[in-house]
């Protein structure tokens, strides 16, 4: 069964409004390690960046020298608390961090601004809403940016132009690697339930099996891609579009939108995580209905209560 995209809210900080702020955080060791050249303070930083899938704010962690980025995932169960020493922490959330390829975070910017012209990287990664985006420049993973973009001009200028062909082949490799791991770890991805002790009689694998692994992997990778790119990747992987899969995702999205509580929490988060107004949503709206001035609106209002003129005249 294809993996249904998880709700992006899991990576949004949700307990920021608590003044006595302590988190239960599981961190992989390498984020705390300092590189030899680095001589600053040795604590990793938690910052908000634009999530590559939703375009909304999400929490990420930078290692002390900014050279690696990790995404923060929150696991939350309604009725749970932590015992910490002698105290009880009522907030039972658990935060986990896993390294993420910074190219995924740069990809939306590249796609948006660099599809027709090359832009120097330091200009590209300037996001007024998320000023910390600039830190991505120092991350070591960015040296592989030529996997998804063409370098234009001088080495020093560091200007890139988005290349969709390259991007898709890069994503394909990523997806195949994820599928490989899924296979190695023997993670069951089929649509039917299967006993954990079930052993397949024949070792040879059916092509359908590889397909479902690949589809599941595509679902995982798509969590870090804009929806349209995810669809393109699906085509590139030669996987037929699964109508059920789409339906499901849509319905979950709708659910998320219809839940007033959830959106409220999200708004609170937004106001608390950054002082800058989140403009990502209205931006999307304006592209759909361009140039609706107040005059047009007034006219539309004046027009209400009249039949359309074409109903009086024959169409020719």
């Amino acid at each position: 069964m294809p993996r249904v995209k998880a709700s992006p809210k899991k990576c949004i900080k949700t307990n920021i409004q608590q003044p006595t702020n302590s988190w239960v955080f599981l961190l992989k060791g390498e984020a705390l390690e300092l590189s030899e050249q680095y001589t600053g303070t040795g604590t990793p930083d938690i910052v908000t960046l634009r999530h590559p899938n939703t375009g909304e704010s999400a929490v990420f962690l930078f290692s002390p020298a900014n050279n690696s980025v990790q995404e923060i995932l929150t696991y939350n169960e309604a009725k749970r608390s932590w015992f910490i020493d002698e105290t009880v922490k009522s907030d039972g959330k658990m935060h986990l961090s896993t390294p993420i390829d910074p190219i995924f975070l740069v990809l939306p910017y590249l796609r948006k601004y660099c599809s027709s012209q090359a832009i120097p990287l330091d200009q590209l990664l300037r996001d007024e809403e998320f000023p910390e985006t600039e830190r991505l420049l120092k991350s070591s993973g960015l040296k592989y940016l030529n996997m998804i973009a063409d370098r234009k001009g001088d080495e020093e200028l560091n200007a890139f132009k988005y290349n969709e062909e390259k991007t898709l082949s890069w994503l394909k490799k990523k997806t195949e690697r994820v599928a490989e791991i899924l296979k190695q770890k023997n993670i069951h991805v089929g649509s039917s339930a299967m006993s954990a002790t079930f052993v397949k009689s024949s070792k040879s694998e059916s092509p359908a099996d590889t397909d479902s692994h690949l589809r599941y992997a595509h679902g995982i990778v798509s969590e870090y891609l804009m929806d349209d790119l995810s669809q393109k990747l699906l085509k590139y992987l030669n996987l037929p579009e699964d109508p059920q899969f789409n339906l499901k995702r849509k319905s979950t999205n709708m659910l998320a939108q219809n839940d007033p509580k959830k959106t409220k929490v999200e708004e609170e988060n937004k106001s608390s995580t950054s002082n800058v107004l989140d403009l990502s949503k209205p931006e999307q709206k304006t592209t759909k209905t361009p140039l609706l001035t107040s005059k047009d609106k007034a006219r539309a209002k004046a027009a209400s209560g009249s039949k359309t003129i074409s109903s009086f005249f024959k169409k020719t």
Partner: protein
Amino acid sequence: MFEARLVSSSTFKKILDAVKDLLNEASFDCSESGIQLQAMDNSHVSLVSLMLRSDGFDKYRCDRSLTMGMNLANMAKIFKCANNDDTVTIKAQDDADTVTFMFEAKKQEKISDYEMKLMNLDQEHLGIPETDFSCVIRMPSPEFARICRDLSQFGESIVISCTKEGVKFSTGGDIGTANVKIAQTNNFDKEEESVTIEMQEPVTLTFACQYLNSFTKATPLAPQVQLSMSDNVPLVVEYQIPDLGHLRFYLAPKIEDDEN
């Protein structure tokens, strides 16, 4: 090859000023008989119909009919660059994607060229049937503009009722009500100042102020305006462009409350 030349660019300026309020873009259909424009506003409640006859131009040549989609705001920008007494020439190749406007000053001492990209507009054409209207009112165009402007302060819609006694424009709103009555007057010395009413049967219709106000942007084009009304048929507001053609606005009436 299409070429049309008009001695005074001010007529074009006035036409643009009159329609650019309602329309963002429009296609100009050029044929041997002249230039025609027909377009609905965004809300599809009103229709603009412009006819410029070929014999009204100083020089007119149209080898093959062509349709030119133009952004009216951009066209207005270009005509702002022309002086009122400049001669304007509109030129286009048969299957061109640009149109050229050439402005020549009176004494030929200055010639300017503006080339504008054309747009591909997907617009449906409506066939407008010939209608015998119950009421046809002719009145000075500034007077009509004044009434629309005055009444729009009080309400969102204007009721126009035409009876034997004359025409009554009325509106009502939060402040109160407003009525303007106009009786038929014949002024033989100044024909453009007279009010004439041709009436078969009385008509009362309601229209949106906002649209009427937009129509009156055409006031500089003609000294007289003609309003034609019949029950359950759009109002026609017509401005005659002297020696050249006409500009007509059609507006669907408001649906009466008692009908709902």
